């Protein structure tokens, strides 16, 4: 984040005054906005205690609706993560293969699943499971949701993995080859371990996407996840939709915040005491690296069995 200190000079007395003024204006505007929102909510009786009470005084609202929903969300999300991560890694490495048919087919699959809305993938999986397998109807929505999430997110993760590996300095793989490592060894011992730290931020934001996208299963597949719990809940408590949705949104934010916090703690541990190249794949920098062009031509992982001793 070097840019922050670089983009502007250290504020002098005038700039400090101006900043204070801007801050005051901003606070006033924000406070006015919040006051207007609260006032309107109160006008429309949306702040009535009756509408919010269930979440604070009635533990049954949590035990019957929210917590089972949260459980299903967590199950689906963690299953999808556990399957999509290795699958995405494999697909990402396959896209860097030096066999054109492996590269090409992996690329085709990845592009295909990235182009289709996850909801349609889930619907499709649900229909296919009921048609061709005898998975019990109770767990079929879960299977369908996880399948849809895995297909989509594994292909996004594949791009992240590819970008992460490509972000490493070329000298790393050259050096590894120079000491006589095989291709698989280069990948396993040199490239993957280093790129994992670089990829973590991007991977984490994709994991957040997985958690949020479980909510898609509730609408059409009848998967009773957290967001779907709003419907029976608001039907019971007098259509307190605004309160219900707010509570669910807060739970999602807390959940995802916990996920990102855990990941940054993990990232810190991985980085500590370990020499990395310092490369970081930003959450969105993936596609930049992934667009075919100079970066792909930089890819000499697949330079056959050639051990280039010439590089420094």
């Amino acid at each position, binding site marked *: 984040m070097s*840019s922050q200190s670089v*983009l502007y000079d250290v504020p002098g007395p005038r700039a400090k005054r101006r900043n204070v003024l801007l801050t005051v204006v901003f606070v006033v505007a924000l406070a006015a906005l919040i006051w207007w929102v609260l006032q*309107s909510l109160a006008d*429309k009786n949306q702040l009535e205690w009756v509408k919010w009470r269930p979440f604070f005084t009635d533990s049954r609202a949590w035990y019957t609706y929210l917590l089972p929903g949260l459980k299903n969300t967590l199950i689906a999300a963690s299953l999808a993560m556990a399957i999509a991560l290795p699958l995405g890694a494999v697909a990402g490495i396959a896209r860097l293969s030096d066999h054109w048919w492996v590269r090409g087919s992996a690329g085709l699959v990845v592009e295909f699943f990235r*182009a289709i*809305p996850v909801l349609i993938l889930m*619907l499709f999986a649900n229909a296919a499971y009921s048609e061709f397998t005898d998975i019990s109807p109770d767990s079929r929505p879960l299977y369908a949701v996880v399948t849809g999430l895995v297909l989509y997110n594994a292909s996004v993760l594949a791009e992240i993995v590819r970008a992460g590996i490509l972000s490493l300095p070329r000298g790393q793989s050259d050096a590894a080859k120079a000491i006589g490592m095989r291709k698989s060894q280069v990948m396993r011992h040199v490239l993957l371990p280093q790129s994992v730290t670089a990829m973590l931020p991007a991977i984490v934001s994709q994991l957040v996407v997985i958690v949020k996208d479980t909510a898609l299963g509730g609408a059409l597949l009848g998967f009773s996840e957290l967001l779907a719990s709003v419907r029976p809940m608001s039907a019971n408590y007098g259509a307190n939709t605004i309160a219900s949705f707010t509570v669910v949104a807060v739970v999602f934010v807390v959940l995802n915040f916990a996920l990102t916090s855990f990941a940054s703690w993990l990232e810190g541990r991985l980085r500590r005491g370990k020499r990395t190249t310092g490369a970081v794949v930003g959450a*969105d920098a993936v596609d*930049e690296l992934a667009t075919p062009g100079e970066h792909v031509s930089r890819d000499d992982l697949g330079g056959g069995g050639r051990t280039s001793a010439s590089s420094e």
Partner: protein
Amino acid sequence: MFDFLEGYDLLAAFWVTVQLTLYSAIGSLVWGTVLAAMRVSPVPLMRGFGTAYVNIVRNIPLTVVIVFTSLGLFQTLGVTLGAKDFTTINFRLAVLGLTAYTSSFVCEALRSGINTVPVGQTEAARAIGLNFPQVLRLIVLPQAFRSVVGPLASVLIALTKNTTVAAAIGVAEAAALMRVMIENEAQLILISVIFAFGFICLTLPTGLFLGWVSKKVSVRR
């Protein structure tokens, strides 16, 4: 085999999808840029607001954001965005919701783009006496935009697919039509394939074109 399509206006539904995508893309580009500027601005409170906004909005499912625009903004706060009938109101609300959500991703993409601009550039800009807005407008953002065309393209593709959520407040876009068709016709797989194909038609060319653009405009360093 396709005779069940009779009576459904697929093109009109996808046209709504395209319109939603287009307006939301423009909106989130603008608001996302403002957010990114806030996040790197000298005023600590604005930085705080930008960070809080991005971290909260990104962590909420889009469905909730969209439903809030209708229940919160329209119903409770009386925001109609200058429209009178429900169709227009809902469309504009959906654009607003999609913009609010997508701009947090645009902001993050831009911020990573700003980080790629070499320190020397901004130092030089400040040395010749440019102030913060000028540094951003004249030096940093033009370069940052060029380096993030690729990431912005994937945000745009995600946005195209996310417009399906607008059905939650009654916007008659592609996914809404799909639900009606699934309910009325016993052709689940075929209908899914048709709509998947429709989305591929929208997203793949976008991705390819913007990939080409991103190579064209990328800053060689």
